[in-house]
């Protein structure tokens, strides 16, 4: 049955997360961006919400709740509404943890999942994106060769979130059907981790480049074991998460512009009374809604456990285009004030363009 009805629990979560985003997350966003520094304190506060831990098995210290991608989509939109940089930092480990929880071996679960159920925030990340143009997640230049009962991985990864602190990376290698993900510990020999990359936006999110020179891992390090890894699922999950994150950015821009446009006067009227401003803002609303429904549809397919490769791609690509447009329009609505850093809109303009080139950073 077609239904846009969030469960009561989801409504409660949404409201709580919005208050948190408004009162805790948003106020810290500008400083974190200016200093290109993640607020450890805010990160800790998000960690206390238990967004990841509650979804992990009770036996391993988690909350044992059944994971709901839709609920996490709702959460992520609100967090990103507050600050997309903190939201991506906070959920980046989920791409690692949830992958292990879903497809890891008993041993991997036992060794790795408890890390995310502790008192403090624990960093690990999926390493998918590669440097250089024309990135295609179905055709990676990073290669993994079977050698005896090990795999030898060589290649380079970039935009790896929390690379400055992650204890483990889930490194994706290979091409087409022969793609696999491997658990690579930070101290693996042959793995070099760069200084944090300097990016256009999401400046508070530390990302790094990984160089893998014949990094040798045991066969057991492969996600999915002998059966091999369902890499496309990792890509899909991240795309849905990114789509909902960008939805949050779009909504932030719209929500900020509405009162501004009503307040700001030109030619003896509020600029909101000019069709030249009002119509584009109507469009901003239309597309923010559209982004959300596409993301929810993909999330609900994930929840049902059906293949959502198509929905996930369409949702991410759509959000990438529309968030960029909406943030751009937000800057235009503020005019000169949109260009100065007293207002958050210019930051969202940078964040929107940055989010739109990310892949494989998040999960839900």
């Amino acid at each position, binding site marked *: 049955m077609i239904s846009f009805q969030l469960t009561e629990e989801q409504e409660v979560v949404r409201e709580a997360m919005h208050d948190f985003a408004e009162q805790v997350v948003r106020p810290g966003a500008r400083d974190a961006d200016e200093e290109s520094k993640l607020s450890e304190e805010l990160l800790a506060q998000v960690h206390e919400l238990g967004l990841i831990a509650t979804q992990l098995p009770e036996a391993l210290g988690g909350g044992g709740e059944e994971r709901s991608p839709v609920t996490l989509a709702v959460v992520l939109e609100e967090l990103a509404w507050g600050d997309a940089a903190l939201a991506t930092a906070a959920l980046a480990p989920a791409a690692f943890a949830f992958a292990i929880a879903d497809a890891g071996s008993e041993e991997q679960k036992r060794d790795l999942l408890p890390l995310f159920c502790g008192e403090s925030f624990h960093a690990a990340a999926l390493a998918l994106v590669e440097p250089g143009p024309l990135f295609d*997640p179905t055709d990676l230049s990073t290669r993994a060769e079977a050698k005896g009962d090990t795999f030898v991985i060589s290649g380079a990864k970039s935009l790896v979130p929390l690379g400055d602190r992650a204890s483990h990376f889930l490194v994706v290698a290979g091409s087409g059907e022969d793609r696999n993900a491997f658990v690579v510990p930070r101290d693996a020999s042959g793995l070099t981790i760069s200084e944090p990359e300097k990016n256009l936006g999401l400046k508070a999110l530390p990302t790094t480049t990984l160089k893998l020179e014949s990094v040798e891992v045991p066969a057991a390090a492969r996600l999915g074991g002998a059966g091999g890894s369902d890499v496309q699922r990792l890509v899909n999950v991240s795309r849905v998460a990114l789509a909902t994150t960008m939805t949050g950015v779009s909504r932030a821009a719209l929500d900020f512009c509405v009162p501004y446009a009503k307040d700001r006067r030109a030619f003896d009227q509020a600029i909101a009374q000019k069709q030249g401003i009002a119509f584009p803002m109507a469009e901003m609303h239309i597309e923010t809604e559209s982004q959300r429904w596409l993301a929810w549809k993909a999330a609900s397919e994930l929840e049902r456990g059906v293949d959502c490769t198509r929905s996930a*791609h369409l949702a991410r690509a759509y959000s990438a285009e529309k968030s960029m447009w909406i943030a751009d329009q937000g800057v235009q609505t503020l005019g000169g004030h949109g260009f100065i850093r007293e207002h958050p809109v210019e930051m969202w303009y940078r964040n929107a363009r940055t989010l739109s080139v990310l892949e494989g950073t998040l999960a839900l």
Partner: protein
Amino acid sequence: MIDFTLSDHDQSILDRVRDQALIARKYARHYDENEHEFPPDELPEAKDHPSVMKDLMQRGEGDCGLATLGMLISMGETWGDYSVRIRIPKGAGLGNAALSAAGTPEQKKRWAGLTLAMAITEPGCGSDPSQVQATAVLDEATDEWVINGEKIFVTTGCRAQGVVLWATLDKSAGRAGIKSFVIEKGTPGFVVAHKEKKLGIRSDDTAAFVFTDCRVPRTNLLGGKEEIPKAGSGGFKGVMKTFNLTRPGVAAFGLGMAEAALDFTRGQLAEAGVDLGYGSGTAGQPAVVDKFHRLEGTFEAARLTILRAAWLSDHGQPNNMEASVCKAKGGSAVREITQGCIEILGPLGISREHLLEKWFRDVRITDIYEGTGEIQRMIIARTLFDYTRADLS
């Protein structure tokens, strides 16, 4: 719970709608090229395909609400053709929606079964219904309304048995003075002028009406309320309310055709050996694939905004803004999609040997009738800013 799946029952209904639509599609080109002809009330094949009406009314546990399913059915029908139906449903005119929304119980009974068109637009006024020039004057002596005026772009105007007409009791009262009247065909002074020649939806029946001292019983005023509410007291809103289901509806009409265009294009690309792999993302793709994916995203987005607006009404929640959102989104989506599919297919796309060029023409009305895209954006913006008509127009 968020859900975008369909029950087997609903799915089977939509499958049957598609089967019937495919039959209607066989006649689509004929009626496009023979604009003066009307498709028959029933195609020969109709007898083998019982109407889905009855099953429609059976709503079980996991089934969609009627409004939501209705949108999917509309899409399924126009996916075959905009105006050729395997059978013309009785009483499915836009005027019937107005009747059921604003009519008194007696009126609903009285005109039940009649197909009623809706006559709003006039030569001098398009998007601004408050400009209605048609007048209705009460003749106390005979207890009759005397109607004078001209209406254009009247959908199903030729074959409808009657019409719901907007006329003003008092031009000085502006919107508040506008009332709806039901006028049956054959009433003296009611002339159906001509069928418009159009870019698309050519077999669709779009008429122009002329009313000259046309007299109808006093009881034909829809809803029966003769007094003119003070301006701004929402009297006009009363009239406007009848739009809330039709805006998503016409968006669905357009989107059904856009889906047909996408399906046709997908098939042609497959024949040409183009792989639509969604896993790769955008950077690695051929231009036509990237373009096609964007059109698909636009389609899905527009479809979901329609379902959203319908779902709200199924749950008795106000959907005025959402109705405008899906109408505006649908209106631009269908243009982008049909234009884009032709761009992708090139020579094939402009050939009248195929229906793509027809869908390109047919969908163009979507952003125009039942309130242009500009009007919808105005409604959306007013809601965003909590503005009145006076604040933004």
